[in-house]
């Protein structure tokens, strides 16, 4: 965790303590609200109660009701209001309770927030950070499990950020809040409380022993657009983000494969240099995401790797994804791209 040491050197990061991802996200908002009186937090159930996942717990008590408040149940309204607040000069951090509920806000995000800077030639901007828990693996059924990141990566003018550890979550969220463009910050809820090796039938882990669970209490940021090599290796490159970083890592370690795993952290803007360098070194590439396959962000990654590393590739790029179905409830683990699906793809990719 070289990032920790670097940022701690500025003196602002403070003591490093153990946090889970919820606590790290909460800490990021608290730090930013302390530093910038224009940062406000709002969303369904985020105020007095502190959010259905507790991400905003204690913030209203600390910063008051005019800076941390509950909202009506209208995602269109939440984002539209946040855009207006941004135009006033605030820096809103709205929460959409589940990514599955973000669709009523699509017009406000896609046609308004994402284009405001462009269409007004910079007179108005939308410096929002839309936080939203996403992804499955929690028996959430079709309305609490989706991964809609590919919808937003297709939109010009919005950044998409997905952390995979508490440390990254805090540093990336701070950078997102400080960013002057709209950021969709998807939080992989399956790993809120601990990393996940993909084996749903084994005991859940927590963050207490993972290096990414060591989080400075103060201010530090992780620049958007910078990927992290979470596991160096030479046999192949795995591109992943969120929960799938951990599943992929556990799988290659169980199989004894010397994979290089890149946690993208930011999908737009993408750290293409790190990807290219790795794939040119390993000659093989696998893309993993939980979202549905067709038209997913994996297709974009696969195309980019093919365009830029074609003459270094020794096998076609493998895509491991969720299926093109609604997210199922009872058959969740048949849908989820777990160790079996990843393992088969690894064998295919490495067979020649």
């Amino acid at each position: 965790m070289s990032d920790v040491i670097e940022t701690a050197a500025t003196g602002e990061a403070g003591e490093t303590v153990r946090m889970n991802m919820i606590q790290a996200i909460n800490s990021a908002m608290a730090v930013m609200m302390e530093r910038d009186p224009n940062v406000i937090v709002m969303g369904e159930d985020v105020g007095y109660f502190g959010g259905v996942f507790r991400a905003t717990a204690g913030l209203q008590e600390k910063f008051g009701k005019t800076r941390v408040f509950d909202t009506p149940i209208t995602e269109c309204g939440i984002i539209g209001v946040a855009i207006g607040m941004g135009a006033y000069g605030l820096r809103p951090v709205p929460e959409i309770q589940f990514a599955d509920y973000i669709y009523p806000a699509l017009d406000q995000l896609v046609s308004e927030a994402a284009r405001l800077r462009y269409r007004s030639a910079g007179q108005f901007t939308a410096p929002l950070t839309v936080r939203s828990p996403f992804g499955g693996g929690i028996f959430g059924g079709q309305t609490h499990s989706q991964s809609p990141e590919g919808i937003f990566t297709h939109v010009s003018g919005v950044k998409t950020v997905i952390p995979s550890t508490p440390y990254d979550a805090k540093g990336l969220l701070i950078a997102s809040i400080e960013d002057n463009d709209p950021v969709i910050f998807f939080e992989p809820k399956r790993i809120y409380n601990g990393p996940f090796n993909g084996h749903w039938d084994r005991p859940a882990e927590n963050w207490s022993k993972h290096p990414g669970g060591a989080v400075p209490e103060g201010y530090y940021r992780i620049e958007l657009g910078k990927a992290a090599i979470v596991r160096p290796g030479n046999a192949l490159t795995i591109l992943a983000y969120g929960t799938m970083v951990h599943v992929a890592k556990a799988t290659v370690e169980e199989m004894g494969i010397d994979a290089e795993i890149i946690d993208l952290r930011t999908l737009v803007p993408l750290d293409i240099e790190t990807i290219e360098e790795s794939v040119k070194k390993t000659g093989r590439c696998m893309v993993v995401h939980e979202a549905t396959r067709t038209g997913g962000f994996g297709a974009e990654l696969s195309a980019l790797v093919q365009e830029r590393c074609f003459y270094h590739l020794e096998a076609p790029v493998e895509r491991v994804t969720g299926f093109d179905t609604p997210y199922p409830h009872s058959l969740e683990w048949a849908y989820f791209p777990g160790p079996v699906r990843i393992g088969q793809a690894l064998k295919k990719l490495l067979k020649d």
Partner: protein
Amino acid sequence: MADVPRNLPPLSLHVPEPKFRPGDAVDFAAVEVPPAGAQPRPDTAADPASFHDLSYTLVRVLDDEGNAVGPWNPRLDPDTLRTMLRDMALVRAFDERMFRAQRQGKTSFYMKCTGEEAVAIAATHALSRDDMCFPSYRQQGILIARNYSLVQMMNQIYSNSGDVLQGKQLPIMYSSRDDGFFSISGNLTTQYPQAVGWAMASAAKGDTRIAATWCGEGSTAEGDFHSAMTFATVYKAPVIFNVVNNQWAISSFSGFAGAEATTFSARAIGYGMAGLRIDGNDALAVYAATQWAAERARTNQGPTLIEHFTYRAEGHSTSDDPTQYRSAGEPSAWPLGDPVARLKAHLIAIGEWDEERHAAQDREVAELVKASQKEAEKNGILGHGLHQPLDSLFDGVFEEMPWHLREQRQQMLDEEEASGRPWARKA
């Protein structure tokens, strides 16, 4: 459970139909026009529940003789009245000229506000200069009333080298932060929740400025409208919602937004919000209603919904031909008259204006518009030459340009090079 009954009459689907179609004789006798001055003016601190009646009538100040009557008379001084009259005459002259410019092929698109000039202009005069406006696409009167440069407006319409929006937006989708004029979207009613957010921010910061927003009656059907109404009521946001009921949403009459069942002002009642339904062609009623709503907002009484009952006297835009779907007799038969003529009649009635001065003013604004156009066209017209640097196409997507946009920008420049730079040659 009861048996499924037999012998039931068949259901029927009601699809609204406007009263008059092309070729029909127009008779607006069914439009209820109450006498001017007859509506009470509640205290601005009054409970909205105590004046629901005002959502089912029309607040009117100017009577048929041009007198300002009743408790809503804002008692404006003659200079203010004359300024409003000139602003309305100016926006009408501007519309005429720019409509023609589009027909002459100088730009792609234009939208007039003919017949509903008072809605934006009188409201703007009743607001403070630093209040924030979130308009739809037919409130060019706000910019005129705030003395925004006509040349700048035209530069935007032509997307020329003087366009402060750098040719990035469709004509008339203005934006002027310094003039409290939010960037117009073109997607309908998205500005409603944004206005509420701005107003909430102003309140949260202990500011004194309020927000005002406008949408058409047709777009009250959008979810954004209802989201905005809920948010505004919940937080008592200092915002004024203007619904410009000009009877037509392109070719769909107001019945497709629910006007057969109730008024648009009545939407306020369900939210517990203050609602007013006013004569939108009466500049004094628009002024008075806005002033009243602004006072409510400024004293933390919360939002007000104002339905401006008016008429879209011309097509939706230069891309529209209203003779295809409505009777040509409608505009002249409209029972609330022409807002410019009515304010003019009032000024004449109080001895502060006359026909000669009016005719001279019409000539003066026409000349001003003409001279502004000449000035603006020095910066170019749409489609004639390259008005913005080619690579500016990629500016402003993000604050800082990421690699993928830099690559695409280079690709575009290479394409231009390969093509022999036809755009550059034209310039």
